């Protein structure tokens, strides 16, 4: 094993060696540079291997052969080795990446690079404060030198600002060091820590100066303008090092400082960290320049790390796992993103659309974003999970809230960016492709997935990358070159096989959800056969969603549940984003979903109270002061997915703008995930009271109002898919209402809605999608009279709306019947008023749907259109059959689960399924008899009318009585636009978009605040210096006020 000292030595030696070479040489110095960096990385790597795998103990290296305090000592342990490996590897890759620039600038630049990497390793290794100062100053000088590598001339300005601030920092540092030395008589960090500086005369002040100086290097808010300028203007490869390696090394230095300062200084670190994290993320919201945005994000991530460092008192053993996870996720993703930014020719975020020409790059970009945001299966996810649990266990809820808020803001701007990449128009020559750069960036992708595996392996919750559904979804990434039809076969068989495999292990409740989600999904996927070509990106996303759903149903522990939840959220986001105009809607979907998910995370964390493996069933045992809060958080999180009123505004756009076969998936299937969550929640936690208010009662109101508002909004839509989307809000409102009734039949009704809504909404979305495909529009008033041209779609819609409206004999009636029986025993009666009102309103939009599309007047340009494609019609016809069967024998699906649910309500109120009649405590219902009687009457009358009118003259569309006139044109004769104008007059005031206005105001406020406050970064180096002084003074006031 080579001593780690050789890392330093190799760097220094290499730099000297380069200095000796002739000025004109290029290749040899470059080769030497790479070799040295390689050696450094190899040494670091070998040590890491030794520590991590062979379990070696950390080593102390004493320079000059003496012990401290007489000499400087280095320490290399697991953390140091990993950080050194990270630093050197990033350095090596950046050197590869910067080949052109380094060749142009010559050996001096390479030497500075080596010094830079060496100095960073020194910062990591050293245990001596003054030595730390020296290495940090070296870092400063090298940074200033490397900034000049940039092709951007503005980098000069950034460099000088950086130097000015560094001078200030070094003054603070030196004064701090000397007084600390004066107080403790040593320069060794461990000795200082042992000396407990806070207790010594003047020690606290001295430590404060030292600490604040090191923190200043971390670019804390607000003293970080200079860092952002460097990120924006420096060479991306350098920014990669500056963000990851410098950030990592400095945060490690700060960590060492905290060891000196002791527990007393942890809150300071926490506060500075969290303020930085939140503020930087908010500021990033309004950035348009990609590198500056990455700069803000880097600052934020380092802030988060500082926050984590501030939690080392409660994290215990998990400290390195959490901090490491966040740090590595930040480092790898940020390095990767900076490297990618070098491939993009222009600097606006929207210019990244150029990445689309290379799908691999999009994959890389997605990986980095997921890594950065902390989505499963990446390390940040595990780290966030553990962090949240520790924070919640110790009652640091404010901190948890702020972290989650910051993370949400971060996710918002990052995924907005992703939306630009997928959706915006790519400029000509927007991609400055260089294969070596791409290779470097892609190496980060590989590292990202390796880390994902590693962190999963270490997590103690089971490795997500071992989950078969997830692997199956990921399998579609390498298979994406296959034709879509083949992939579709694979996907369908995968879903069916997984269902078949797990069929025996589902309980009846799970079975219903699983049947809707897996074979149900397969059924909808039939429609995907209709696409030609390869359909890049569809299958990984769709299967990711289905993987999440499959895992959700069988999740036993809160971790599995939450991971599945995040997976399905991300998968569906990618799916929704595929729609033509879905960019803003997909974003709002993701932001709301992640917001909900974070609430769920917080809820689980509070519920677990530090328990490492929290079973979902244990939710029932959550202790009293927490239980209602947990309930509220989880319920709101789940209701975000079911789009309950208040958090529903993402749904219409997301569902309406999605592709033809995606809309039924996200509407018919995905919404059920929220219901499943609510089921799980109510089964385990039951009724909860918060400040004397029964939470299920609140849910009852939310469900009822959702039903009303969803239906009411639906009737005023001109866009067919939006109409259906709003209708989903209403239908989910019913389901939530049923659940919140907290009785047997209420739950059964919710289940009935799960099945019914899946069938008819999928069917309707498919038919409307097929029609939109043929007519080229989704605006209903532009259609009309399509009944003869698209008879099958018409049948599907007609059956769908009869079912949805709840009219016997179709299956919607069953839902209504159970609903009435359920409310008979409900404790609360007032919310029924709202639900009763919502019910008939559904007729309005359903009639509008079928009338304005299929009936009325056929338009000129639609005269020759054909029936929807076979593969879109086929699943609809299957749905029609399914609906009929379910209407005839609801017992097929419900009987078992009815029995199963008796256990939750002490056997009260279940149905009696004897013979063909279904009876409850209050009433009875015989679906077969109803169907037969209505069928007989109907057919008799129909045949009679046909017979009487056997000679009737079929006429065409303008053969209508028109008060002696004739219709002018079909467009002016088709009554369709603003269909329910009188209704708008009567109840339109209820459709005021208050919720939309609220959320828009929130978003607008955040953006405006960010836009105003960021002006505080004036770009003047002296102002930045004053910011730094201000920062020092504020920290002093807050933590040292009153102390010597």
């Amino acid at each position, binding site marked *: 094993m080579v001593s780690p000292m050789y890392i330093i030595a190799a760097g220094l030696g290499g730099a000297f060696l380069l200095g000796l070479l002739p000025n004109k040489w290029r290749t040899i110095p470059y080769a030497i540079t790479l070799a040295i960096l390689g050696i450094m990385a190899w040494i670091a790597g070998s040590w890491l291997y030794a520590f991590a795998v062979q379990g070696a103990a950390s080593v102390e290296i004493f320079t000059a052969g003496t012990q401290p305090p007489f000499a400087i000592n280095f320490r290399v342990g697991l953390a140091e080795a990993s950080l050194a490996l990270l630093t050197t590897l990033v350095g090596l890759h950046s050197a590869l990446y910067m080949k052109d620039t380094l060749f142009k600038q010559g050996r001096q630049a390479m030497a500075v690079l080596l010094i830079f990497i060496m100095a960073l390793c020194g910062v990591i290794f050293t245990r001596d404060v003054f030595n730390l100062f020296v290495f940090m100053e070296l870092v400063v000088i090298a940074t200033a030198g490397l900034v000049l590598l940039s092709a951007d001339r503005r980098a000069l300005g950034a460099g000088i600002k950086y130097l000015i601030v560094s001078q200030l920092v070094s003054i603070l540092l030196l004064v701090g060091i000397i007084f600390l030395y004066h107080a403790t008589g040593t320069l060794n960090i461990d000795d200082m820590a042992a000396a407990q500086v806070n207790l010594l005369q003047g020690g606290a002040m001295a430590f404060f100066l030292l600490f604040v100086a090191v923190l200043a290097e971390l670019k804390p808010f607000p003293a970080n303008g200079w860092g952002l300028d460097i990120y924006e203007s420096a060479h991306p490869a350098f920014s990669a090092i500056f963000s990851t390696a410098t950030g990592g090394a400095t945060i490690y230095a700060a960590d060492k400082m905290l060891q000196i300062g002791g527990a007393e200084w942890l809150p300071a670190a926490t506060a500075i960290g969290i303020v930085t994290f939140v503020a930087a993320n908010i500021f990033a919201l309004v950035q348009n320049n990609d590198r500056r945005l990455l700069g803000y994000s880097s600052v934020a991530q380092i802030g988060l790390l500082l926050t984590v460092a501030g939690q080392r008192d409660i994290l215990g053993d998990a400290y390195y796992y959490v901090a490491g996870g966040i740090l590595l996720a930040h480092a790898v993703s940020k390095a990767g993103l900076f490297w990618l930014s070098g491939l993009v020719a222009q600097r606006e975020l929207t210019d990244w659309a150029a990445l689309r020409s290379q799908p691999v790059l999009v994959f890389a970009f997605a990986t980095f974003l997921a890594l950065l945001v902390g989505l499963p299966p990446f390390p940040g996810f595990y780290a966030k999970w553990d962090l949240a649990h520790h924070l919640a266990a110790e009652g640091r809820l404010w901190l948890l809230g702020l972290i989650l808020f910051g993370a949400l803001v971060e996710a918002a701007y990052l995924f907005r960016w992703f939306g630009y990449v997928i959706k915006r128009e790519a400029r000509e020559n927007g991609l400055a492709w260089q294969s070596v750069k791409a290779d470097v960036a892609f190496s980060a992708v590989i590292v990202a997935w390796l880390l994902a595996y590693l962190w999963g392996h270490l997590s103690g919750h089971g490795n997500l990358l071992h989950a078969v559904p997830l692997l199956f979804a990921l399998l579609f990434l390498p298979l994406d070159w296959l034709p879509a039809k083949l992939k579709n076969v694979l996907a369908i068989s995968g879903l069916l096989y997984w269902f078949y495999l797990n069929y025996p292990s589902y309980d009846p409740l799970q079975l219903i959800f699983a049947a809707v989600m897996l074979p149900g999904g397969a059924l909808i996927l039939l429609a995907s056969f209709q696409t030609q070509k390869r359909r890049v990106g569809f299958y990984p996303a769709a299967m990711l969603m289905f993987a999440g759903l499959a895992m959700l149903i069988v999740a036993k522990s809160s971790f599995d549940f939450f991971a599945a939840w995040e997976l399905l959220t991300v998968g569906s986001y990618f799916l929704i984003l595929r729609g033509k105009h879905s960019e803003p809607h997909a974003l709002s979907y993701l932001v709301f979903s992640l917001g909900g998910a974070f609430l769920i995370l917080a809820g689980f964390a509070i519920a677990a109270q530090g328990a490492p493996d929290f079973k979902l069933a244990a939710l029932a045992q959550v202790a009293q002061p927490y239980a209602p809060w947990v309930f509220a958080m989880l319920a709101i999180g789940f209701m975000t997915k079911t789009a309950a009123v208040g958090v529903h505004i993402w749904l219409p756009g997301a569902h309406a703008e999605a592709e033809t076969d995606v809309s039924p998936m996200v509407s018919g299937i995905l919404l059920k995930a929220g219901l499943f969550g609510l089921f799980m929640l109510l089964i385990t936690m039951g009724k909860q009271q918060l400040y004397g208010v029964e939470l299920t009662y609140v849910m009852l109101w939310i469900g009822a109002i959702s039903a009303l508002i969803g239906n009411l909004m639906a009737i005023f839509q001109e866009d067919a898919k939006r109409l259906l989307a709003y209708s989903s809000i209403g239908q989910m409102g019913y389901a939530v209402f049923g659940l919140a009734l907290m009785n047997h039949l209420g739950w059964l009704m919710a289940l009935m809605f799960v099945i019914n809504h899946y069938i008819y909404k999928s069917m309707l979305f498919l038919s409307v999608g097929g029609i939109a495909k*043929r*007519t*080229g*529009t989704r605006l209903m008033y532009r259609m009309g009279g399509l009944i003869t041209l698209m008879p099958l779609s018409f049948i599907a819609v007609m059956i769908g709306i009869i079912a949805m409206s709840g009219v016997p004999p179709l299956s919607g009636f069953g839902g209504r019947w159970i609903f009435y029986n359920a409310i008979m025993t409900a404790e609360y009666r007032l919310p029924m008023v709202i639900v009763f009102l919502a019910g008939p309103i559904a007729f309005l939009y359903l009639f509008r749907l079928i009338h304005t599309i299929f009936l009325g007047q056929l338009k*000129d*340009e*639609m*005269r*020759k*259109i054909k029936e929807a494609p076979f593969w879109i019609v086929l699943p609809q016809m299957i749905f029609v059959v399914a609906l009929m069967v379910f209407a005839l024998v609801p017992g097929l699906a419900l009987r078992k689960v009815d029995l199963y649910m008796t256990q939750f309500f002490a056997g009260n109120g279940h149905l009696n399924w004897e013979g063909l009649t279904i009876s409850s405590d209050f009433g009875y219902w015989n679906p077969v008899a109803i169907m037969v009687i209505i069928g007989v009457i109907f057919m008799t009358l129909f045949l009679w009318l046909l017979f009487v009118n056997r000679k009737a*003259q*079929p*006429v*065409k*569309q*303008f*053969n209508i*009585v028109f008060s*002696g*006139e*004739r*219709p*002018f*044109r*079909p467009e002016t004769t088709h009554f369709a636009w603003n269909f329910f104008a009188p209704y708008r007059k009567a109840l339109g005031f209820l459709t005021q978009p208050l919720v939309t206005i609220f959320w828009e105001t929130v978003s607008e406020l955040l953006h405006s605040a960010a836009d105003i406050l960021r002006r505080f970064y004036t770009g003047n180096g002296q102002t930045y210096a004053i910011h730094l002084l201000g920062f020092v003074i504020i920290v002093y006031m807050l933590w040292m006020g009153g102390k010597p």
Partner: protein
Amino acid sequence: MKEELLKRIVKTPDGQEIEVDPLLDYYCQEGPTVQPPAYTAIIEKLFNWARSESLWILGFGTGCGAIEMRPLMTPRFDAYRYGIQWRPTPRQSNLFVISGYLSTKTLKRVIRSYEQMQGPKYVVGLGSCTINGGMYWDSYNTIKRLDDYLPVDVYIAGCMPRPEALLAGFEELKKIIRAGKAEGANLYAKNFEWYKANQKSVIHDWDMPDYNW
């Protein structure tokens, strides 16, 4: 020909160009046919009785005579007791009362409405104007003889005839119907060309199909 009835080329959503001929594509092209009575005489008799006792008048006032129809609904005359009532749509009416002078412009609407009624259907000409032009005998814009254009079952003379005359006219019509002689619709179908020629000779801008179903 009106612009909206001209053939036009439109682009379908999938990019094809198709020709739309509104008269052919939007209107039924069939002509009227002679409709035989019911198979057996007794049923036809029953039907004729029912038809006579259930006269549904199209609410379409063409001239000043329209004002004479209103009193029929009032307690003074109360036409309802004779099974007479007014319907707002030609589809459900079987009696067309041409109430007074008929300008060529209105004639077009009258023809359309008449053809939209379902047979058997009856026409009553009210007032001198429908008989021979009446005081509008020299008008450039008012037809003189209604039966040139539509098969008329009963004329009620006068300028204007009073509501009592109308009631008497309806009674007369009922007799004709019961006798099975009110076959105006069949007459119209049989002499369709003649009627059309007459109609087109006064309606210069014929902008509808030959038969308006």
